[in-house]
């Protein structure tokens, strides 16, 4: 598990960001800490079906990708 996938990760650029809990700078691809929680991403949504490593579908209808942030998606379902 990486910071990049964590709910508390606030990215400032494609390489790094800030932990929303302690405000420290962290690298996106470094290992997460014990407070890790899954970010709201398409890959954790029950509407999402993975079709290849980096692509999938949403509700079997739309192209989608697993890493997409979904905090703003009203249809996100765990």
């Amino acid at each position, binding site marked *: 598990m990486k910071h990049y996938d964590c709910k508390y990760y606030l990215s*400032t650029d494609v390489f790094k960001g800030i932990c929303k809990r302690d405000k420290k700078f962290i690298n996106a691809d470094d290992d997460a800490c014990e407070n890790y929680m899954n970010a709201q991403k398409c890959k954790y949504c029950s509407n999402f079906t993975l079709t290849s490593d980096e692509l999938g579908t949403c509700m079997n209808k739309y192209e989608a*990708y697993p*890493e997409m942030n979904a905090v*703003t998606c009203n249809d996100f379902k765990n």
Partner: protein
Amino acid sequence: MENNHKSSEVLPDNYNYYGTRPQGGFQDREVKKPPSIRAEKARTMYLETKSSASVEFPYWYTRRWEELEGEIPIIRRAEALKSGFAHLTPAVLPGELLAMRKANYLRGSYPMPWLSEAFFLSKEDDLYKEAQKAGKASADEATTMGQGGGNVTESSGNVISIAGKFGLRKEEMPILIKTAKRWLNRSVDDVGHKYEQLVPGYDTKEEIMRAVICMFDSGYTLPQGREVINYYYPLQYGIEGIKKICRENQANVAGFPEMDRLYFYKGVHTMLEGLQTWILNYSKEAHLMASLENDQVQKSEYLEIADRLERLSESRPDTFHDALQLVWIFHVAVLNEDAISGLSPGRLGQVLYPYWKQDMNKGILTREKTIELLECMRVKFTEIDCFASMGVVGGVLSGNTFNNLCIGGLDKEGNSAANELEMLILESAISCDTPQPTLSLLFDEKLPEEFLLKGVECTKIGTGYPAWVNNRVAMEFLLNNFRKEGMQSEEARAWAIGGCLETSPGSWMPLELNGETYFIPGGSAPATSVGVHFISLPKVLEAVLFDGLDKRTGRRVYPPHGVELDTYEKIWTIFKHYFSLTVEVLTLTNNIQHDIWGKVSPSLINSMLKPDCLATGKDISHKGSRYNRTFNVEICGGVNLANSLSSLKKNVFDEKTMTLDVLRTAIESNFGYLSALDTGAYSLTDQVKSADYKAWLRIHKLCLDAPKYGNDDKYADDIFREWQLWFSKMCENYKSLYDEPLYSCQISVSTHAPMGAVTLATPDGRLCGTTFADGSVSAYPGSDKNGPYALFNSATCYNHALSQNSQLNMKIHPSVVMGREGSRKFLEMIKAYLRKGAFHAQFNIVDSRMLRDAQKNPADYRGLMVRVAGFTQYWVELGKQIQDEVIARTEYEQLG
């Protein structure tokens, strides 16, 4: 055989200096003031952040667009924008006083495939290969991108570099390709391309682009920008108030002729719903950040942000802080609508003054708090990136986005418009020096001396702002061009600079605040610099000398003229012919691109803001703005053209010191030097001789010694004036999409680098591949020998009001303007130039030796900024072509 001898045999030791070459260690700029702790932290974070692209906005935009197949384009566009905004991931950072940004990343931006889908595709992709075949790819090849700072120049780990600037997470690339492919044959670029091919002479246009005689197309690259935004409607009505206007107008026009008005109002309403969700998502995020925060001060700041955003998602502001936040929201909203450079906040200090004054009178705001807010605003503007191809983002923009804030000028009644808030804007620009927003001081004799001296104090910090711009010249230009659309003197005073230096029309709108009415200025025209984007004049002259060929590639660009060039007049005549041919075909093809843009991807957000779109129900592509004569012809390399014509006239025809054939061969032999493209050095002084340089020494010296513009030399200045008068007149022979004549525009931005890179040596002695003179009236580096006042006389040898702008860059050693005495001398010099009828001057107050050191040790100079041509940029984010040119500019060691 190559040797290491530089150009010293033809150039004197003090070539790039006026006055005595400085000795000893290099001198830093005069003392600076530190910013607030908060702004310093924000700026430090910015400096450590890389330009980053994301896919979420284009993904959601495209997904919604596809769902609405068959819907009216403007409604489709509105729904797509609504979806894009509503799905942007919010990010609120610790210490922020102003929230919201373009995308989730701090320097975030994203591709806009609805404009053009091909250039950002991975190199393996077939689409990319197709894009490379087109002439427009040539500008990318001629461009060098800055190698430091926030540019992601190489792919590494999970990050892919796009256009040498933007980082994209590797896992987002497949969906980006998929999303881009959805726009194949549907983007503005593709649809426009289909129809522009119907223009007679289209093949010539392709060759013009391939030769980089023209830098880039207009309609799908940066269809908006180089204009002044207008914040009036959100400030006066709030978002719910504007929605109400839309609903009322919808009811009034539904079923009546000119039905497009109905769809426009519906579209604006829909788009605003998306903006409201976007703002509320940020409010929710601020609440989340507050819930995770233990520090009580920071927690309350997050909660204030949350409350402020919730209020502003519906209502008009009534405090300075709220007004500034709302202004920022709409600025970013417009930037997210299309790829845009040069969306200027305009006279922001005058727009916000009513709020500031009332807050100060109520005792709820202090000067210190104001400065802190303004410093934070500076960092926010500096965060703005524009996602575009390397040719555009590097070759034209140098990574800059030209958000120009103007101060001074006149108010509606014709009195000085400078105010106390503008003094604080200057103060915050001194304490928190950042590239954005750049400042322009609209000089008028009515401005108070104290204000002007504050401007000088700011210019002296060395970042190149404020630029000094002549209010009266701009008003004359505007009245000449917009009187037909009803402009009177009173409204001409509302102007400001859009983009780096584009004179843009404005209007006064009545803002009501707590029972008082204030007339605030704002932009009232769409992009004022679209149409023909940058014609390389030296490259056109090269084609004249070589019978229509691009001599670098051997390709035919223009029909052969077949004329024996045995008089100077024949050269000048053929030049005018080729130049006219270029303007004609580019005007027609770009008109089509802009027409397609307006049809398939019209502006909703910017249209809504611009008077009188909301009143008339017409968007900016349908002449909804108050002023619409906004297409222009931009050129680059005018001074090299004049110097080259001067050399031709003098050497070949007047004094017959060489034949034209000999000169042609000398040009092809690069006067015995290696090409700058081989040596990687782009200024004249750093060129390396080849084995046979002696064979060309005499010829080269004669070319260098021919009369040069910038010395108050009648011979060269007459040629320059003849070009200027002809150019400004000939533009009027061509009509824009809106059936209005074009006008001339003379800024180089960064195009003098890539355009120089593809141009052979020129008859003025400039060598192959080296950068042209910047701006439009700056002397070629090192060629101005007679001091600043001689340069001013040359620059004002024609009426600057004939053109949208003129641009003069000067480099002055810091010791020359030291102290209060230095400031006064400096101000007198600026005034002397502007009083001669000049439009603009800007200054690098810097020791060139420091720039050389910065080139060698970039890590020591992350915060160093220089003025390029109408904009200020971090040194380390400039390409070497531009760095070399800035170093080479004549350094003035004295002002007299």
